């Protein structure tokens, strides 16, 4: 056991998998000497060599497209897209190519590719660096979408992603990269996809979130407890596969639900959760399902982001209103 933050947990997962399997390789912009713009790949070049830790030309579509081909050749690429917003440049290589290759080849080929991408607001980044566009990949069947929220999960889910024979988009919440350390085992371990975690149990309202928004929910839970409102917090961990069962049963127990995410409201994955509940937990619902999200505007310039992003205050207000309805 070592105390690690999210970034250290990711770095450690990469190092463990590269040490275990000589075909695992890391490629992307500035992942080599620099160790990535956040230093997530720091030390890997020195340890595993320039054939396996590769600074690529500045062209996201070719990073993903080449990873597909590398996977077919027998390598196990872990591609870094410097910021999730720049998956837009590679969009045609992700859903339409990487995600569909198994289907297109009717199972002859599959793509064991992990795409790592930092994202999320709150750190005063330039445009595109903060965009929470995870929902744009939900309509691309064939790829899994993984959203860790803490160091332990970050390592276990990343090792699972690297070993998954299918492509995985692994989104890293950069705002909490260095937020806090927790006990993270030294050896390899995996956390299965499609299993949400109930990280706090309460009787009145269920908060559902993923990635950095989980932290918001935990802060809100503390404040709500002071008000006498006891909440369940569900950390979805993966959007695809979506663990309908855990969410439905958690909401069934409280009868009330608030979904929280840092992406804009309209068309966010919160809509999928609420829609699923409106279908599968309908008779257990005692109040309208609330969503707390960013507003439906482009991610704003740094000085405006605190107003744009969902805040602990907004989560608390929505949960109070939901509990009392």
């Amino acid at each position: 056991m070592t105390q690690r933050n999210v970034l250290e947990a990711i770095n450690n997962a990469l190092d463990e998998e590269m040490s275990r399997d000589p075909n695992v390789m890391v490629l992307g912009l500035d992942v080599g000497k620099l160790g990535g713009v956040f230093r997530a790949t720091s030390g890997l070049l020195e340890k595993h060599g320039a054939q396996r830790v590769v600074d690529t030309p500045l062209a996201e579509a070719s990073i993903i497209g080449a990873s597909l081909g590398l996977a077919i050749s027998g390598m196990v690429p872990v591609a870094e897209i410097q910021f999730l917003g720049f998956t837009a440049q590679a969009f045609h290589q992700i859903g339409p190519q990487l995600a569909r290759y198994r289907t297109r080849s009717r199972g002859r080929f599959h793509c064991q590719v992990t795409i790592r991408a930092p994202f999320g607001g709150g750190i005063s980044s330039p445009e595109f660096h903060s965009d929470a566009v995870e929902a744009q990949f939900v309509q691309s069947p064939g790829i899994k979408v993984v959203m860790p929220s803490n160091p332990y999960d970050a390592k276990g889910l990343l090792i699972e992603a690297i070993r998954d024979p299918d492509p995985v988009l692994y989104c890293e919440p950069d705002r909490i990269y260095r937020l806090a350390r927790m006990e993270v085992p030294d050896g390899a371990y995996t956390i299965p996809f499609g299993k949400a975690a109930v990280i706090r149990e309460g009787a009145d309202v269920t908060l559902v979130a993923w990635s950095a928004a989980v932290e918001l929910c935990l802060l809100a839970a503390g404040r709500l407890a002071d008000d006498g409102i006891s909440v369940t917090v569900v950390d979805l961990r993966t959007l695809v596969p979506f663990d309908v069962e855990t969410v439905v049963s958690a909401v069934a127990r409280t009868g009330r639900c608030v979904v929280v995410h840092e992406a804009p409201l309209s068309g966010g994955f919160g809509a999928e959760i609420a829609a699923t509940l409106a279908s599968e937990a309908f008779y257990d619902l005692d109040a309208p399902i609330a969503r707390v999200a960013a507003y439906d505007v482009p991610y704003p310039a740094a000085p405006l982001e605190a107003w744009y992003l969902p805040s602990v205050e907004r989560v608390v207000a929505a949960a109070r209103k939901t509990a009392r309805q």
Partner: protein
Amino acid sequence: MKAMTARQSILKPDGRLLNGAKSSMTDAALMEAVRWMLMSRIYDERATALQRQGLYGVFSPAAGQEASVVGSAMALDPARDWIVPQYRELIALVRHGYPLERLAAMGMGRITHATRIPEGVNVLPTQVALAAQLPHAVGLAWGLKLQKKDSVVMAYVGDGGSSEGDFHEALNLAGVRQAPVVFVLQNNQWAISTPRRMQSATSSFALRAAGYVTYRMSFHNTTDNPSLYEDPKQRDEASRRDPIDRVIKHLTRRGLWNDERDEQTRMSIRAEIDAALDKAASFPAVTPGQLFDDIYAELPERLRRQREELLGEGSKE
């Protein structure tokens, strides 16, 4: 990375070698090439006819481009090298080991495990988004090199496809990684109805990649109507330079071909195609449950429920 910038055409319309030109192919290779080219042309005709009868899906003929397809593919060793196709290279895939009956059965809508690329055949599946296959080819070549395999990857693209951003990104990456990949750009003068001069102001597509100047002697695909945009004179001019005619005239001049041989070759090809089409027609048909095969190694719960919904419904009907 090297680009071949000279036009490599060496046969005149009458089958004679251009002044000073010399073929680097052996007679045996030439004879093999002619057979593949003829097979491609004859298969075009058969598939088009079947499509017109509603028995075959959208089909893209290779007519006019047989020399570039066959000539490039014959440089490869199927046991070692890989092909990454655009979509007019059916005959290259066949030579590389993809059984014709499987390709035919796919054309007939029998798209199941029985028609997929067989294990050990080094071919990537045809995909439809132009140029998107090119970075795959680079990654494949790069990975084979990392694993110290002595393979080459041959990737095809059209004059149209080469305008896509993926083309530039793939070539640039191949250069930096020194990946063993050959890009074959077939400039057949058209991208559907868009003529070459609207595609690029480049003086030669060969500046972009190993280039073949050919002419698409048929429609774009079976949904297309070239009379809306093609000047018949262009087609006539191209027909005068039909690559198959030229090679056959050349072989005839050299005493390696005659009417009897022509007749025999065509008959044996027709028999081979007939056999493949016959087999193809008896491949298993698609089934609804198949919708959920090959999405993930393991089907997630939500999809398992969708599958049940579909099959429950399906069995009621």
